[in-house]
């Protein structure tokens, strides 16, 4: 991707944008709490606190000076690739070869918007925890470095607001959100007055609390605030989402406060995943994420292509954004008789919950929480069984299956599905059934791993035949 960049003599050995100092010194910010903690933990007279704070300030200034020195010595250069050199104690020089940059992410926080700076992350297809190179550049330079192809107007997909809100609500922890509605209601009852609060809110509160003691009510309050925060965070992150296709380049842009522009070579997309939670199923919405080397590596990022859309909107968006991406439409389904195989885990949880409820006392609240979780998963797995399947065709392997509290449909191009495993337990052998496992590379914030997609209870002979089809395609 970097080979598309022009080799400009003016760009030879440049120093990063000065905003580098702010973001490099960011890790020292928690030290600002030291004077506050000292004054709280060992209260003395004002003169002593002031003298100690001056020392803290001096240490802070030294650390900022260190970051400034790092900025003064840092250099980068684009010359058919990227060369970056930075660090004082550990001096690091990096060479990124042309065509090896799989994705480029341009970030603009409110501070960067004010100072006209940008953070550019360059990712290669390696198994890495963080971006290969992080650069701080001015907005003008970023515009020059990542030019837009003017040959044709880009194909554009823009997400609507309400599906993004639904994504925010479902991505945040809905179960806890529902569980914790009751303290909010009972509190509202207290605020509004005794007439309403004493009767309706009390009954509704008791119903929703499912017998939770007041101690857990406080915890539930914390969870609801956590859920609300997560909801606001997701909404801010995916608000104003739009995706554009410019030739082979996929340009994804999102964020209300911090704007992120991600450029991906669409040929390097290695998996397409459709995800649906129970909450989203109510509205017939899907979230589409992709696996592209490097994208989604940083904390808090999800490689979303379509945040939330109904089936028709989704098909049209994918036809526009990834028209060449192979998608398989025929699936081998699990046998009807194996329905129980999908349900045994939630049923076991429900049985455990029933036992705990019968024991009463301290165990009862735990039992109630398990009951809700078990019932929730029972619903997801029941729906998941109806949709589960495995298929090979049109250049892709596809699997549909329930995992955790969501339903997944994954399409992987045949050339990137690195392993397909057919497994048979002793019981499955007797019934001529099998489990199909498709393994592929997956980027996850903070770590990397191989993801395993498993579909249970497929007919063995048919699965073997499908696998042979896959081998024929690959050969």
């Amino acid at each position, binding site marked *: 991707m970097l080979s598309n960049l022009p080799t400009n003599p003016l760009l030879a050995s440049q120093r990063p944008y000065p905003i580098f100092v702010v973001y490099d010194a960011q890790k020292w910010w928690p030290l600002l709490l030291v004077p506050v903690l000292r004054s709280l933990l060992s209260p003395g007279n004002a003169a002593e606190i002031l003298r100690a704070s001056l020392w803290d300030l001096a240490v802070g200034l030294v650390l900022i000076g260190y970051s400034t020195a790092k900025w003064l010595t840092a250099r980068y250069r684009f010359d058919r690739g990227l060369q970056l050199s930075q660090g004082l*104690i*550990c*001096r690091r020089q990096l*060479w990124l*070869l042309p065509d*090896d940059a799989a994705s480029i992410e341009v970030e603009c926080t409110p501070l960067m918007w004010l100072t006209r700076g940008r953070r550019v992350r360059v990712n*290669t297809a*390696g198994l890495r925890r963080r971006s*290969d190179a992080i650069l701080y550049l001015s907005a003008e330079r970023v515009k020059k470095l990542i030019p837009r192809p003017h040959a044709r107007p880009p194909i554009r997909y823009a997400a609507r607001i309400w599906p993004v809100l639904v994504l925010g609500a479902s991505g945040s922890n809905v179960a806890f959100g529902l569980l914790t509605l009751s303290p909010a209601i009972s509190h509202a009852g207290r605020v509004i007055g005794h007439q309403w609060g004493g009767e309706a809110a009390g009954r509704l509160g008791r119903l929703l609390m499912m017998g939770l003691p007041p101690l857990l009510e406080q915890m539930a309050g914390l969870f609801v605030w956590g859920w609300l925060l997560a909801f606001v965070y997701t909404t801010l992150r995916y608000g104003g989402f739009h995706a554009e296709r410019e030739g082979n380049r996929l340009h994804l842009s999102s964020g209300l406060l911090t704007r992120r522009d991600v450029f991906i070579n669409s040929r390097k997309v290695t998996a397409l995943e459709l995800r649906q939670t129970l909450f989203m199923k109510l509205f017939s919405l899907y979230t589409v994420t992709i696996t592209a080397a490097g994208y989604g590596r940083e904390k808090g990022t999800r490689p979303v292509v379509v945040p939330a859309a109904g089936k028709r909107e989704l098909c049209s968006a994918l036809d526009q954004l990834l028209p060449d991406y192979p998608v398989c439409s025929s699936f081998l389904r699990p046998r009807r008789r194996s329905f129980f195989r999908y349900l045994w885990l939630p049923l076991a949880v429900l049985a455990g919950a029933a036992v705990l409820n019968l024991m009463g006392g301290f165990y009862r609240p735990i039992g109630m929480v398990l009951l809700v979780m078990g019932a929730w998963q029972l619903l997801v797995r029941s729906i998941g069984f109806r949709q589960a399947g495995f298929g090979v065709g049109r250049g892709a392997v596809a699997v549909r299956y329930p995992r955790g509290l969501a339903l997944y449909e994954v399409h992987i191009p045949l050339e990137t599905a690195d392993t397909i495993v057919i497994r048979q337990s002793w019981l499955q052998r007797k019934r001529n059934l099998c489990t199909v496992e498709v393994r592929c590379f997956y980027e996850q914030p903070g770590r990397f791993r191989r993801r395993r997609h498993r579909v249970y209870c497929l007919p063995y002979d048919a699965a073997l035949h499908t696998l042979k089809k896959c081998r024929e395609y690959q050969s």
Partner: protein
Amino acid sequence: MTFGGNQEVAAVLRSWIAALGLVLSLLWGAVAGLFGPALLWGNGLIMAATLFLWWWYPARYASTLRGHIDQNALYIVSGVWFRRETYVPFEAIRAFECWTLPFERLWRCRTVVLRVAGGTVFLLLLPQQQAADLLNWLEQTGRE
């Protein structure tokens, strides 16, 4: 192109071992200060272990470090207790880095880091000239 350890590689390792021994000794001294001087014999053990490692390990490491570049791959052998043979096809390399820490700068050594799709390969403590030759070679081949 061939690689191999030399006296400077051993010197870097000696510096690190000495520094580590000193820090451990200080920490153990602090522990002895808290729980009683009877624990100070531990310092003697730490110093003895440090001295043994300082004398024995670096030269061995430098003598086992060797490697070469053939037409399309890099081959490196290193390690004293566990010998590691690393083979990196050039086409697999996505990015490469050169790291230097203060002791390495002092004794003219470099650490070369190769980023490949399957992870990261560290070529620890190559002599400065050999590291520079390797980086130049990687850069030239990458451009071609």
